[in-house]
């Protein structure tokens, strides 16, 4: 199986990948999640053998393959822009990997047909790839990557170039195809929903390091850092100081908040930033864990309402509600202790 050990990579004298290590299970799908330009694609190219690295090792079944040429590794890689060969038609593109293995013509033919059927592109076999739509190109690229039976499949933003409606549809198709394969998959994306959909495990890549890994719900519900909380879209923040560490209670300007169990421990008196996820608030029935707020703005979102509140000290917050609230009205918001996240305050970052 794939093992990555201490990979370092510089790009124009900047450290792009900083000590990346992980191991991949036999038929596990791992999602590399992180903002664009974070070195995710570079990591894929290193694993594929297309890029040099300053230090570190790539191992397969315990064997060091760091210096094995790309074409001998049998790792499939699907590029974000699909990289279909413009001078070949759909069938020739898909058959390319089999031709490289110098298989007999009838086997190439049969397996190409199978792969095209798998992605529902039989009818397009003779088409020029330049005449295909984005979604069709994506299917061809997937078939081309799968048909040589790679030992490992890497997908670089496979849905990134598609528009939203198409992405949802193809996302299901892709999931169905991947579930039929019993090979490990590395799926690179900057989109958290995609990562949650596909990943058995998530690796969060930030500034060249894997800052957190785990199952999607684990990572989403318990981000280790303020940065990751913000990356997941948690924008509601309040600063305060710890008044009690067990259970954790934080005094903020707008009231005392009790937080559920956190990934790290806090000392009494420590200055912290409390993050309140979108779904953490409801209308209060009692006095515990509450914030007083005015309803500033309401946006209907289909499944419910995004409601902007203003707290007593001017702080603005947004929460998701199932029902609407009167604009301008004053409400008392109750916060679920287990959904409140707490982080050490980072100096220089206002709330």
């Amino acid at each position, binding site marked *: 199986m794939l093992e990555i050990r201490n990979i370092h990579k510089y790009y124009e004298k900047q450290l792009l990948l900083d000590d990346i290590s992980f191991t991949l299970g036999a038929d596990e799908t791992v999602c590399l999640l992180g903002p664009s330009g974070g070195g995710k694609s570079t990591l894929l190219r290193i694993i594929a053998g297309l890029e040099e690295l300053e230090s570190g090792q790539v191992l397969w079944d315990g064997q060091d393959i760091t210096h094995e040429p790309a074409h001998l590794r049998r790792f499939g890689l699907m590029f974000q822009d699909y990289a279909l060969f413009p*001078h070949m038609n759909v069938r020739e593109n898909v058959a390319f990997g089999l031709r490289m293995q110098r298989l007999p013509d009838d086997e190439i033919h049969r397996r190409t047909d199978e792969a095209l059927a798998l992605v529902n592109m039989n009818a397009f076999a003779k088409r020029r790839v330049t005449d295909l739509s*984005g979604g069709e190109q994506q299917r061809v690229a997937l078939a081309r990557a799968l048909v040589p039976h790679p030992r490992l499949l890497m997908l670089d933003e496979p849905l990134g170039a598609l528009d939203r409606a198409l992405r949802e549809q193809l996302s299901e198709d892709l999931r169905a195809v991947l579930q039929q394969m019993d090979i490990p998959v590395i799926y690179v994306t900057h989109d958290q929903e995609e990562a949650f959909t596909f990943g058995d495990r998530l690796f969060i890549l930030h500034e060249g390091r894997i800052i957190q890994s785990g199952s999607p719900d684990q990572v989403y519900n318990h981000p280790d850092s303020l940065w990751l909380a913000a990356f997941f879209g948690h924008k509601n923040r309040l600063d305060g100081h710890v008044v009690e560490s067990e259970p954790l209670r934080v005094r903020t300007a707008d009231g005392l908040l009790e937080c559920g169990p956190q990934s790290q421990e806090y000392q009494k008196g420590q200055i912290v930033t409390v993050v309140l996820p979108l779904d953490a608030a409801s209308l209060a029935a009692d006095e515990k864990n509450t914030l007083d707020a005015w309803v500033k703005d309401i946006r209907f979102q289909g499944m419910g309402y995004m409601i902007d509140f203003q707290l007593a000290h001017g702080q603005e917050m947004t929460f998701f509600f199932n029902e609407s609230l009167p604009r301008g009205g004053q409400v008392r918001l109750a916060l679920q202790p287990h959904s409140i996240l707490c982080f050490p305050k980072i100096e220089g970052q206002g709330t």
Partner: protein
Amino acid sequence: MQSKRWNAGRLALWLLPLGFLLAFYFFPLGKIAALSLSKWRQNGLTGWDWGLVGRTAGFTFYQAVLSTLLTLVVGMPAAYLFSRFRFRGKGFLRVASTLPFILPTVVVAAAFNALIGPHGWLNQGLMAAFQLAQPPIVIQNSLAAILLAHVFYNTSIVIRVVSTAWEGVDLRLENAARTLGASPARVFRQVTLPLIRPALISAFLLVFLFDFTSFGVILMLGGPQFSTLEVEIYIQTMQFLNLPLAGLLSLIQLVFCMGITALIIGTGRSLSVPVMPRGNQENLRKPKKAPEKLFVFIMSFFLVFLLVMPLIALVGQALIVSDQNGWHLSLQYFRQLFVNSRQSIFYVPPIDALRNSLLYALTASSLALGLGMLLAIATRASRILSRVLNWLVLLPLGTSAVTFGLGLYLAFGTGRTALRWYPLLIPLAHALIALPFVLNLIEPALNAIPANLKWAARTLGASPRAVWRRVELPIIWRSALTAFVYAFAISLGEFGATSFLTRPDIPTLPIAVYRYLNLPGSLNYGQAMAMSVILLAVCALSMFLVDRLQLPGWSDNTRKVQPDA
């Protein structure tokens, strides 16, 4: 990872083009320098005819400036015509304006001779009309003839370079300036001109370089009293056998040309000329107002007269025979090409020159394409080495054809090695001359292939060699073929270097045209015209091919992600 490792194959890839340049470029150039230096050692500075050197250099500069300015005066309105108006016959005019650029100098000289020379249509017509005994227009052997031919030659460069830029200037910008209260003159000065200025400077430098190194036109139309550096090198070598002086002139020429080339490259311009201005339909309109209509009419008429008439006269002179029965159409001159007559200046029928030329051109273009490919591959393997090689390749670009000829002649054309090398010298020289153009076409095409395509092929199991064969080569074949055809056309019409390296019994077509043009008698004149027509036809065919090859370019339909239906 493997890519940076050196192995025998990679080294050969490098050494081959490098060795070629060393042997056939630097060694000959060294010969020229050594020759001049040895004379200098003997006599010091006093041994040279400095008056001649100064006069020649001065005239070279003078005629180049004059020609370039005149070309711009003609080319600018023509570029405007092409980049802003839609009118009947534009397609024809566009092709007509492309043609001169690729025409061999001898064909241009012959064409002007056919129109305005002593036997030219204009003079014959005037003599017939006014019963004159002498040709009334004596333009042959004058500066005017040189300038005219240069304008004919290079107007197409100005049109192509400038109109490509001009077409790119969005009409809406000019309209916006108008609505903001700028007069048309001001719009031109403050909006259009700044936007096309880079192209204008490019065109100026290119045309200047071509005029500065002009050889055939001046030799054939200027006559004995005008000589540029190029012509003087030839005269000193061929007539006075004063090789050291020829070498000195060559070095002076080299310094000037390198300077201009460095200026062009250094300012980030390219020596390539866009193949064909393709209309940006949005910025084109039909001439509506009377002055516009008048401009379009006069300008296209003028361009037809300037660019097409000489060629028509050339074809006419080759096909129309005048004898005691008057004027009539005849293929007599063409038929004569197959006859090995006793008065012939060659020992072979003139048509053999065509065979020689085609053979040389085929060898030269294959050589140039092969070398170009090797260089293009080699230059991307390593950054530092590629920079070195890139600079080395620039040098031939700034070397005039006559310098090539002289250098190769000195290095391989005389002495004991001469016999063995002679049949190869001409294609070698042509390949060197064509090499920069070939590289200019191949390198961008190779660099335009997205890295992802090569990476995708690698992960699908393609070795580096398979990637080259199955992905890169099929994608750039159009460019490679275009480069081949270009090199072929260049070789076919090459005159400057060839004139040093040719042997009487193996003439090329341009050499034959030159010789025949200088002989008395209407049969020789007619045969010169006929051979020029053949050259013209082959070159026109080549350009037609190049234009066809351009059509569905790979860059036109790269993987654009279309919205799904």
